């Protein structure tokens, strides 16, 4: 039981802090959910990549630093503490890349990962469909075998960042009529600008086109863009879903930095006599610390050779509720000014509201906790 960083940990953290101190833009970039902001964030990704900071946990061959999980966590803490921009490449880096490391071919890794690391190719996820959200296996978009590849037809929706992204990845039904819905699915990558793809941006609560629906009409995908075996897509995708809920999507650094800003805000404008609000500030600070230490414990288990298990569902519920609590508390501290739409707190608040809905709703996560961690019987939803 030890929380003391090693000299190597400290050196890595110091190097990251120095680099970030010299490179983080002093004027915040425009929102990455706008065309202008998307382009600005690509430039930032390229700057990160030039000094191998965009994907620190990847092997050096693909632009990373071979950083272990503890170093990655340290980097993330420094990144958010420095107020660095949001990561436009996140869907690819945190969802597709781990899948390629686990299930992709050497050729796919060599072709897909380097331009992902530089922001040259930005990826969108294409999981959900109008009739397949939490019940993802009920998806009906089809992949039909043709010479040299597959033809995709159907509709995907809630595809984050697809309005401006280059390529997408998702599951398609390649063998209909099998007994169970998660059988006969294939995991494919496709080009969002390929013939037959129509992207319709959807405005988020704040009006920004942060996601989109995709209409696929006889879209050709070559064989080399199938990940894993055709028909085995569910197994391939589930390892990605574990990553999404677990360690890679929401690193503690983000919440620690937000909690620091919240305390500073409370010191500046908080009414010391308002004990209810003070308690909420304290709860948010404690929650961020709890999430950090929970993650360290999980990372320690992972380094001992244990995989990411159903614990990642506890993670998902916790960080999504913490994120809302942090931002709600800030808005209440700001009082009337909290309503303004163009502040970092209000933008963060609107973003946080999606947390309990995406990456598997929190209701689904609670079912997983109850059934797989507590051993309660499966039953009526």
């Amino acid at each position, binding site marked *: *039981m*030890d*929380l*003391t*960083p*090693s000299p190597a*940990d400290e050196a890595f953290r110091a190097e990251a802090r120095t680099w970030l101190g010299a490179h983080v833009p002093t004027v915040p970039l425009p929102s990455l959910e706008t065309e202008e902001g998307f382009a600005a964030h690509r430039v930032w990704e390229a700057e990160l990549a030039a000094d191998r900071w965009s994907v620190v946990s990847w092997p050096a061959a693909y632009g990373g630093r071979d950083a272990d999980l*503890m170093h990655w966590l340290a980097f993330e803490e420094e990144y958010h503490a420095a107020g660095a921009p949001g990561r436009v490449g996140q869907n690819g880096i945190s969802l597709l890349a781990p899948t390629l490391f686990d299930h992709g071919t050497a050729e796919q890794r060599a072709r897909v990962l380097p331009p992902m690391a530089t922001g040259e190719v930005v990826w969108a996820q294409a999981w959900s469909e109008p009739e397949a959200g939490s019940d993802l296996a009920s998806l009906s978009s089809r992949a039909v075998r043709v010479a040299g590849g597959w033809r995709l037809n159907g509709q995907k929706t809630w595809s984050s960042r697809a309005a401006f992204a280059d390529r997408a990845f998702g599951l398609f039904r390649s063998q209909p009529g099998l007994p169970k819905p998660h059988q006969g699915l294939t995991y494919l990558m496709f080009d969002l600008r390929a013939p037959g793809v129509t992207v319709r941006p959807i405005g988020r609560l704040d009006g920004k086109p942060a996601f989109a629906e995709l209409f696929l009409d006889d879209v050709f995908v070559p064989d080399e863009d199938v990940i894993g075996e055709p028909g085995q897509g569910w197994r391939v995708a589930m390892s990605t879903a574990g990553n999404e809920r677990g360690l890679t999507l929401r690193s503690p650094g983000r919440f620690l930095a937000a909690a620091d800003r919240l*305390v*500073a805000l*409370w*010191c*500046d404008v908080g009414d010391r006599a308002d*004990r209810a609000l*003070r*308690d909420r*500030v*304290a*709860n948010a*600070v*404690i*929650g961020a*610390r*709890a*999430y950090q*230490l*929970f993650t*360290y*414990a999980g*990372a*320690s*288990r992972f*380094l*001992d050779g244990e995989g990411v298990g159903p*614990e990642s569902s*506890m993670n998902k*519920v*916790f960080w999504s509720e913490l994120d809302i609590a942090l931002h709600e508390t800030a808005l209440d501290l700001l009082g009337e000014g909290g309503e303004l739409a163009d502040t970092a707190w209000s933008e963060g608040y609107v973003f946080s509201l999606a947390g309990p809905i995406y990456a598997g709703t929190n*209701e689904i*996560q*609670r*079912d997983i*906790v*109850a*059934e797989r*961690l*507590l*051993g*309660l*019987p*499966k*039953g*009526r*939803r």
Partner: protein
Amino acid sequence: MRFLLDDEQRAFAASLDAMLSAADTPSAVRAWAEGDRAPGSALWSRLAEAGVFALAVPEKYEGVGPLPVELVVAYVELGRHAVPGPVVETVAAAALLNGLGERGETGPAERLLPGLAAGGSVATLAMDGGYALDADAATVLLAMEGESLYRASGHGPVRASMDRARRLARPEAGGELLARGPQVVRAARDAVTWARLATAAQALGVGLALLDRTVAYVGQRTQFGVPVGSFQAVKHRLADAKIALEFARPLLFGAALSMTPADVAAAKVTAVEAAYATARTALQLHGAIGYTAECDLSLWLTKARALRTAWGTPAECRERVLAGLSGDRPRS
């Protein structure tokens, strides 16, 4: 950095769990509540043999400590098994006496700590006019009054706590003066930190016991032809209890590693809130059977409430957390 218990620490927890499981703790708790201390004292001796009360006592006073991580490991088990008696207060008294020793007042430490570490004496402690837990069962009754530490010679009437195994009394004023001065106040702060850490660990154990028993119950109890644990409304309450308890755990061990008052306060408020929320869920999901004194669940239900305010209310703990963060940021 390896933020996990090692094999020895896990084995320590497992050995305490096995010993307490075999000891019929619920009977000892019920006897303690009725004023029959024999089964509880036998339990105390066995915990002392296992080294539990030596963990906060340094080697020079015949202890093995200070070992806050092992203390947390042990007190989670004491909470899981609802062990009665001033277990937290004995640790707090040890920290106080040791704190005095570190500040040059070694007399009381040399005289009293070896007995506490070995389990031959049982201590309790009252701060500035507050209640002492189980003063009638303690052989060492300490009372802080301002800058003075007394060994009281008696106590007032014993009052029942909402947790019937906790018995509260105020020490009589005066008695033997053990120490006086600002070093006593500083040592008392150490004592509060240790007491909060032990209470937080005990509360986590209480919450885990409530959760385990409730999960077992809803797996067996059927309504509408199916186990009630198959209903989503039931599952989600238990999932929330599990999440709250599992996120209190790392705060607790993090606090044991740093032993800063702010970290310990954060762990304390989080553990007691999680345990209390779990108690509410446990009672709701047991239904009427859970509301009875004859169901063992009652031993933990009321303790969760009592620990919530023992050694610092949630509001006091939250204030301590923020004081640690905002101290160097005066309002502009």
